[in-house]
C-alpha cells in the first residue's frame, strides 16, 4: 500500500489541471482542423469558379458560333454531353475533375457538377436571344449543408438574323 504521505508529497498534475489542459488542446485542435477544412473548401470553390468560367465561356462561344444548332435544333445530336431538359434548356454534367459526362442516368449520384444553359428570345427584339448559364455543385461542400449550390452565373446575348425574305 502506498502511504498518503507519499502521494501528497509527489509532484504532478491534478485532475482539474488535466481536464483544462485536454480541453484547451481539444479546442486548439478543433480550431486547427476547422481552419484547414475552411481553407480546403475555399480552394475548392475557387477552383470550381475558375473551371465554371472556363467551361461556361467555351459553351457561350460555341452557341454564338453556331446558334442554328441550338435554337430550333438539337445540340445533343452534335454534342453527346449535352442533355436537353426542356425546350431551350440544356444541361451538361461534369465529374469531380470537371470532365463532361455523357449518357448518365442518375446525375445526383454520378455527377459532381451541373451546368444549366437556357436560351430565351428577348421580348421586343426580333432575332435577339439571351443565353443564361449557371453552374452548380450537386453535392454540398464540407461545412456547407447546401446541395445544388450555385457556383457561377453569367448571361450573354446573340443575334440570329439570317436570310431575309423581301416582302
Amino acid at each position, binding site marked *: 500500500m502506498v502511504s498518503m504521505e507519499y502521494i501528497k508529497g509527489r509532484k504532478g498534475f491534478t485532475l482539474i489541471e488535466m481536464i483544462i*489542459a485536454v480541453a484547451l*488542446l481539444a479546442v*486548439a*485542435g478543433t*480550431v*486547427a482542423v*476547422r*481552419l*484547414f477544412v*475552411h*481553407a*480546403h*473548401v*475555399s*480552394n475548392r*470553390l*475557387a*477552383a470550381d*469558379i*475558375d473551371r*465554371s*468560367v472556363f467551361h*461556361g*465561356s467555351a459553351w*457561350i462561344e460555341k452557341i454564338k458560333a453556331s446558334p442554328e444548332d441550338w435554337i430550333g435544333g438539337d445540340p445533343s445530336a452534335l454534342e453527346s454531353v449535352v442533355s436537353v431538359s426542356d425546350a431551350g434548356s440544356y444541361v451538361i454534367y461534369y465529374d469531380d475533375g470537371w470532365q463532361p459526362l455523357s449518357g448518365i442516368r442518375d446525375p445526383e449520384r454520378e455527377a459532381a457538377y451541373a451546368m444549366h444553359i437556357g436560351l430565351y428570345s*428577348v421580348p421586343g*427584339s*426580333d*432575332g*435577339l436571344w*439571351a443565353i443564361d448559364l449557371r453552374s452548380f455543385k450537386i453535392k454540398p461542400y464540407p461545412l456547407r449543408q447546401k446541395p445544388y449550390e450555385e457556383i*457561377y452565373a*453569367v*448571361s*450573354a*446575348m*446573340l*443575334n440570329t*438574323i*439570317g*436570310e*431575309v425574305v*423581301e*416582302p
Partner: protein
Amino acid sequence: MKWLTSNRGSSSILVALVLIILVVFGVLAVATSSANLRLAMKHAETVKTYYNLDSEGERFLNGVYNSVQQGREKASAALRAITEGDFSGAGLPANIAEMIRATLGSLSGSGARQRYLEELYPKLVMYYAMSAITDAYPGCVASMAGDYLENAHLYSTVPVDLHFIAGKTFILEHEGSLRYLNVRIEVSDPDKEKNLEDICAVLEWRMWQEPFEYRNELDLWEGRPE
C-alpha cells in the same frame, strides 16, 4: 540548472507547440485560399462584365439589323404607293414626295421611270433605316455619304455609293475602373437580294479598360540579332 535537465512536461510542450504550429499554418492556409477565392471571383466578375458589354453591343447590332429590315419593308410599301400614284401614302415628308413626283413627271417613257424607281428603292431603305436607328439610338450615326433623299441623289439616275456608319460606345464601371466597348457598323448597299449580315458589316468591336496601365520598360526585340 537542475530544472533544465529535467524531462518532466516536455511532451506537453511538444504537443502545445505542434498545435500552435497547426493553428498558424491553418491561418496561413485560410489566408491563401481566401486570396485564391477572391481572385477567382474577381476573374468571374470580369468575364461577366465582358459579356454584359458584349450583350449591349449585340443589342445595338440587333437594333441596326431591325432598322434596316424595317427600312426595307417601309421602302417596299412606299414604292408600291408611289407606283400607284399615291404619294401621300408613301409615308415620306411632303417636300420629298413632291420632289419624287416632279422627277417622275419629268422622265419620259416607262423604262426610264422603272429605272428611276429601282434606284430609288435603296435610297428609301437607307432613309428609313437611318431614321429608325437615330430614333432608337440618338446621335449614333457617325458618318454618312450624304443625305439620301434631300440632295441631288434623289434626282440622279446614276448609281451612288450608299452607305452610312452607325457607331456607339458602351461604358460599364467594374471595380473602380471603366470598361468600354466601341461598336461601329457600316450599313451599305441595301440590295434586295442581299441578306442583312451582308448589308450591315461590323467595322469595329473593340473593348478596352481605363485607366490603362502601359509599361514600356522592356525593349522589344526587333527580330535582328546583335
